């Protein structure tokens, strides 16, 4: 498809397990963002990839969170030893080049930690 694709759309897991969330950006978009959105809240910035530059990881809430982007395209966000407070919708977005371009969002992964 032409849009940003995220998988899975829903993930339920037990506390302490590791999870991997996937984002497939729009082809040709060099910038990729991950956000977290808790119920009724705005978007919390997690990490930003731009081309081959080192990612801006300043929003990652703890060292349990990590992300990588392989070949400048697909990205995975990994949460290790999940906690109940990690429950949220994780949104991925991509844009053509970053600062002066709008972002195109995927539908998100709803993560529930039991």
């Amino acid at each position, binding site marked *: 498809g032409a849009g940003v694709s995220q998988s899975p759309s829903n993930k339920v897991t037990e506390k302490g397990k590791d999870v991997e969330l996937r984002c497939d950006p729009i082809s040709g978009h060099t910038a990729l963002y991950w956000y977290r959105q808790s119920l009724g809240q705005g978007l919390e910035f997690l990490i930003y990839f731009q081309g081959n530059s080192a990612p801006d990881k300043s929003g990652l809430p703890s060292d349990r969170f990590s992300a990588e982007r392989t070949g400048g395209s697909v990205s995975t966000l990994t949460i290790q030893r999940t906690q109940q407070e990690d429950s949220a919708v994780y949104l991925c977005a991509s844009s053509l080049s970053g*600062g002066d371009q709008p972002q195109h969002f995927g539908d998100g992964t709803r993560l529930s930690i039991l």
Partner: protein
Amino acid sequence: EDKVVQSPLSLVVHEGDTVTLNCSYEVTNFRSLLWYKQEKKAPTFLFMLTSSGIEKKSGRLSSILDKKELFSILNITATQTGDSAVYLCSYNTNAGKSTFGDGTTLTVKP
């Protein structure tokens, strides 16, 4: 610390009313301010503003930026029930990073 503050947090109006949503920001290395509409899942892009005083318009929606006073407004005229959504304001820095406000939840009643 860079931040975005949106007001009001929520708003309930009736069809046909006009609404104004506010967004103020504090940021270093400002590049652009953007408005998004979020209904159920993915936010969708509405406007991008980079210059002060130039109104952007799309149908019943319009937006303007004041870079001196560091705020933007989003106006919706003749509101319809389909305008019910969360409206998000964000800014991009020169480095490409984005920061979002908490959003304004707009409910339009028939």
